[in-house]
């Protein structure tokens, strides 16, 4: 008897979840993103082979936002993130430090870094075999080449600069390497992605993989890609770095996040960026 009643309960629960009683789950919105009427962005693509078991399609967070928020990203005059990128451009041209250089002294215009963001984070010439995020490359230039104070990872100066550099690659596909010397970092990032942290025992995958498209209270859950970072968030009216977002999502599980700038978060960044390989760089994107 009990067993039967329970079986029926589970079946019914499933039926009701689909029925009219429940608010309909909001699917990603059909739309096309063209910035400044000229730059066409790739915001959904068939999942690459290594993601095929997880998603049919890889979809930018842009599709999960409301019409108003999506519209702000169509034109640089409406995208407040671009104002911060412009502040980053001022810093780019400002001489600082004992060596008497600005970024421009060596790199010329910021467009010289076009394409760089598609492979952020990466193991590069300066990083001595370590996996470095953009913030680390920037601070390395400041400390060793400009002889200037490093910027805080999450400081406004740093976010303005990463917004400027990301925006130089807008429209280009994310192109993260996952094998070879990257493999161990990628594996660490993946392990973090599937670990259930905090008193709520929630992994990134529980929300962004299993439940994207669903509503968690008023929030429309996306696939949690990072091609739009640093993002301009309406809620805080400022730029948010990738690591700051990771920290917030782990804090919300009643957990203890890894530090901003920690090797764990750089590895997570690599893994997440690779999940969105092929999506256009959108940074600075607009999100709520």
């Amino acid at each position, binding site marked *: 008897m009990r067993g039967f009643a329970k079986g029926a309960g589970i079946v019914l629960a499933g039926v009701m*979840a689909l029925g009219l009683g429940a608010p309909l789950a909001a699917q990603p919105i059909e739309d096309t993103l063209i910035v400044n009427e000229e730059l066409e962005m790739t915001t959904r693509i068939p999942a690459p082979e290594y993601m095929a078991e997880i998603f049919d399609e890889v979809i930018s967070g842009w599709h999960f936002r409301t019409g108003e928020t999506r519209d702000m990203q169509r034109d640089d005059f409406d995208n407040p993130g671009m104002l911060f990128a412009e502040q980053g451009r001022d810093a780019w041209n400002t001489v600082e430090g004992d060596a008497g250089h600005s970024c421009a002294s060596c790199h010329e215009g910021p467009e010289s870094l076009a394409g760089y963001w598609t492979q952020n984070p990466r193991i590069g010439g300066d990083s001595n075999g370590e996996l470095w995020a953009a913030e680390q490359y920037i601070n390395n230039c400041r400390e060793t080449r400009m002889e200037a104070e490093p910027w805080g990872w999450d400081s406004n100066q740093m976010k303005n600069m990463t917004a400027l550099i990301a925006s130089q690659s807008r429209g280009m596909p994310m192109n993260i390497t996952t094998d070879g010397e990257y493999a161990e970092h990628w594996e660490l990032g993946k392990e973090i992605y599937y670990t259930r942290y905090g008193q709520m025992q929630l992994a990134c995958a529980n929300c962004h993989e299993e439940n994207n498209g669903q509503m*968690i209270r008023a929030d429309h859950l996306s696939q949690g890609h990072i091609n739009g970072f640093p993002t301009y968030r309406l809620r805080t009216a400022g730029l948010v770095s990738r690591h700051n977002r990771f920290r917030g999502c782990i804090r919300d599980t009643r*957990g203890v996040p890894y530090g901003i700038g920690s090797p764990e978060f750089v590895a997570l960044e690599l893994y997440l960026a690779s999940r969105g390989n092929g999506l256009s760089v959108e940074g600075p994107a607009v999100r709520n």
Partner: protein
Amino acid sequence: MKASQKILSLVAGMFALGGTALHAEPVHPDEVVYEDWLVTESLSGEPGDAERGYEVYTSRSQGNCIACHSITALLEDVQWHGTVGPSLDGVGARWEEADLRGIVANAKNLYPDTIMPAFYKSSGFIRPGQRFTMQPAEEPLEPILSAQQIEDVVAYLLTLTEYPE
């Protein structure tokens, strides 16, 4: 002992028992007895209060169940119901009290991979923090809901016996 005395002491004994039941210590989260997923005894030793249970269900600082679930009867009163979990319409008709208590206390006994947090659990976590402060917490933690809050929300769920048209 005379028969009348016997009866008296028996009655006294019953009172004593009743007394402990009424003011029982809540069962510690680590000591809850699950039969499969069922928990048959009240966790607080006291009955639940459905009105307080409604608060537990809707309040962000308590159960925040509404973040994942929806209930048709509440759609007008409270904005934004989640769709991550099933609608709880009729949940009090399809489950018994012991089922609901067990599911709310630790849904993972019934649904091993569920996203639903265990609301009456205090140890066995990875990098647990003190609520949302990001400060490390020592186990055993205070469970997310108290024993009485679990009883209250279960009492509320038991009032949801109807499937709306």
